[in-house]
């Protein structure tokens, strides 16, 4: 499957990932250092000497170029520095831990997105121009028109309050992270809220590309050979119809990343999104910069994965 060409391509992409990560975090680094105020300020004792010492501790007294140099050096060693608000908290292990939490919720969201999206899309395409199609299509517009916090509020209302007796209120993380998969019941609702808007987009794409594929010759041939509709759809049409759907995976990851900022806050999930909102409001710039770097890597990696998926799904593509 991997020819020399494709390996070369992957190599290039890996370098690009690193480059993008550094570029994005550099832009954020430089931008953020122009912001007024930082988390080191103290209402009670705005003592200049003590301030200077703190700035020195965080290397914030160095010229910007030198700070930047230290920062980039750190990034290449996987060291994103120390929190400004919570002294002694190293950012890299913190983000790695939180990334695991976010990955589980985000993973659930992606499963929902793709699962619901493809099913809705296929049904709509197969039953084109029937009421099933209209319902599925309309649902998908409603889906991506609803802000994720609205979806979350509704789910919260139903599962957290109205059906409280049934769910026991454990639909969200109301405490610290309790461990991998042990909290599966807590992932479902936030995962759904996070993925639902994108499921609608996947459904639209699937429907459109299914319609196109169904009309093509080989599907007609397959049908003519007497294969049942179900087999034709699954074995022949769907596989090809999924190719355009793969293109959305890149934007989907970005969507999940940004969506998680809201969803994790609503459901109190101790992941990267929660961290982002908290540290930006507390002006913990070191964490904000670290998060952007982290996100840049995740998104670039997702894009790389999409490229690779292409080669798997569509054998015609060779790099």
């Amino acid at each position, binding site marked *: 499957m991997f020819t020399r060409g494709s390996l070369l391509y992957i190599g290039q992409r890996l370098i690009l990932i690193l480059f993008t990560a550094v570029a994005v975090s550099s832009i954020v680094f430089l931008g953020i250092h122009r912001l*007024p*105020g*930082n*988390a*080191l*300020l*103290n*209402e*009670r*004792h*705005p*003592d200049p*000497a*003590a*301030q200077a*010492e*703190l700035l020195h*501790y965080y290397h914030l007294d160095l010229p910007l170029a030198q700070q930047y140099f230290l920062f980039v050096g750190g990034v290449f060693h996987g060291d994103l520095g120390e*929190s400004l*608000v*919570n*002294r*002694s*908290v190293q950012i890299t292990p*913190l983000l790695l*831990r*939180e990334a695991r939490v976010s990955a589980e919720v985000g993973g659930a969201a992606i499963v929902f997105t793709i699962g619901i999206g493809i099913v809705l899309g296929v049904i709509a395409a197969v039953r084109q121009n029937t009421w099933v199609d209209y319902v599925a299509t309309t649902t998908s517009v409603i889906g991506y028109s609803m802000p994720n916090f609205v979806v979350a509020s509704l789910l919260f209302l139903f599962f957290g309050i109205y059906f409280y007796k049934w769910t*026991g*209120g454990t639909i*969200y*993380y*109301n*405490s*610290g*992270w309790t461990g991998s998969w042990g909290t599966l019941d807590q992932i479902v609702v936030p995962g759904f809220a996070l993925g639902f808007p994108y499921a609608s987009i996947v459904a639209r794409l699937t429907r459109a590309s299914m319609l196109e594929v169904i009309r093509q010759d080989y599907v007609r041939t397959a049908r003519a050979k007497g294969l049942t509709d179900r087999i034709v759809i699954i074995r022949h049409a769907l596989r090809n119809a999924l190719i355009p759907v793969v293109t959305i995976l890149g934007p989907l990851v970005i969507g999940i990343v940004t969506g998680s900022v809201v969803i*994790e*806050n609503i459901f*109190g*999930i*101790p992941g990267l999104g*929660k*961290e982002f909102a908290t540290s930006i*409001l*507390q*002006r913990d710039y070191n964490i904000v910069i670290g998060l952007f770097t982290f996100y840049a890597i995740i998104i670039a990696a997702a894009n790389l994965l999409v490229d690779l998926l292409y080669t798997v799904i569509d054998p015609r593509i060779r790099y």
Partner: protein
Amino acid sequence: MSDLFVGKLRALRPLAVIGAIGVVVAACGNGTSTTPSASLAADQTLRFPSDSDIGTLDPAQINAETDVELYQNLFDGLLKFDDTLKVIPDIATALPTISADGMTYTFKLNANAKFWNGHAVKASDFIYSFSRSAAEGGNAYGSNFDHVVGYDVVSKTKDWAHNQTMLSGMSAPDDHTLQIKLISPWYVFSTELALASAAQVIDPTVVNTDDANWWSKPATAVGTGPYKMVSYIPKQSAAFDAVPNWWGSPQPTVQHVKIDFIADMSQGVVKYEQGGYDLIGYGGMGSDTPTADIIRIQADPTLSKQLKFVNKVRTIWVQYAFGPPPSGSGRAQSVFAGDLESGPAHDLRLAFSLAIDRTQMVNVACANGITCSAATGGLITKGLRGYVGDNSDPLAKFDLTQAKALLKSGDPTGSKTKNLTYYYDPNKAIYKATAENVASQWQTNLGIHVNLQPIDHAAFIKNYTAHNYVLFREGWQADYDHPQDWFDNLFIKGGGSNGGDYTDPKVEALVKKADAEPLDAAIADYNAASKQMMTDAAYAPLAYFKGEFMFKPYLIHAGSNNFNDFYWNEMQIGSH
């Protein structure tokens, strides 16, 4: 202090505050305080949530309320406060012997006192700890030692970890005797030593191994308190265990304390209801529970009995700028500046204050008085020494007729009150709610549109202490029960938190006189200073804070006074 992340804390244990005693009694009454040891739960684990992580537990850096609530259980000083707000010995065996000139303090130390790593506490450890706080604590409470001889040298020390200069005024004639010399008599000194902040003792042999981060790792977070840290996962959880065979008393009954750092207290309340937590409000969370949850709980016959309100020693008010714009700030001239006792600017200030209906404000912004009450007795919170008296503050009256008349004389053309902006930090729900409320009232009652500008807490502090705002939220949380705390920082020229740059020679003279008097004599002068500020219409008072707590009925001696949570080692968990 005035804030949620930073600022000076309150760290006394003042039950002199009448309201608090009621609460304490109430809290105990819920438990089984009469027969404490009769039916204790087998599992003595205390669990509670906190919506903010530990900032630091280093005496040289600590200044946030949430940190102090944990810190006070892990470290000890020479002195501490008892439940009647009296300063009592902690590691010292008795109150200090003070020389006739009031400038030399001598302490005898408890020979049994030791760190949990087994090291005995020596007098030299205090010299080390205090000097370190003086050197590194400029951003926190290090300045509590500013009356100690040698402070001016040590506080200027750079890179203390490698350049340890001790306070020359401190000496240790032997391992269990400590002598501290002051530059002048300073009546607040014992109080400052009792404050859980810069004056707690740490183990030099441990701290010197990692001056910056020793406190964050269970192995090196060494203190003398009844509890020690056993795990700390940033932004997730922290756990503390009782120290076996602790040197002090009472011996801790609660063996484990587990704190979850959660997203917001609303979720903590739900988990409390489900039995996941034993209490709500510890760790400085007393005013972080959303009002909607409190209203919901009040409507619940069972839960409402577990809900306790405690008056907190915190006041917020509207502050006007009295000084000129700092150069390069781009700030406009303050229309509120000058005319201290009478004149157009005075009338304008008074008009803005009299136009606020505080009853309405309390009903709305304090959610029917749940989270705060109207500040009608001066800025010093009710219950503290220096409180002027209920309804004694003329600035807190709601008098629309007078306000309109004053506005006419203060701003006849309406040009001065155009385009005013009120700055506030929306980080706490009350700040946001009161800001929106006063702006709404000014608009409705005076017809003045004041723009609201929410600024993130850190930037807000930077700007207001730099005098960059004309009209803004100001606030203060008492560090200790002494009026001095409310003047020197806030209303004296050059005070670190005098964001309004307010200065009145009469106030300065009264405070200066009072600061040099023993407390009892000083109160009258501080009160006179408070009244002078009222005459000046120096501020527009808003509200005194309340804290809300929830305690499961099986908790024994759980509670909080106006300043702090009760110590963990006083508490027991009854069987349930």
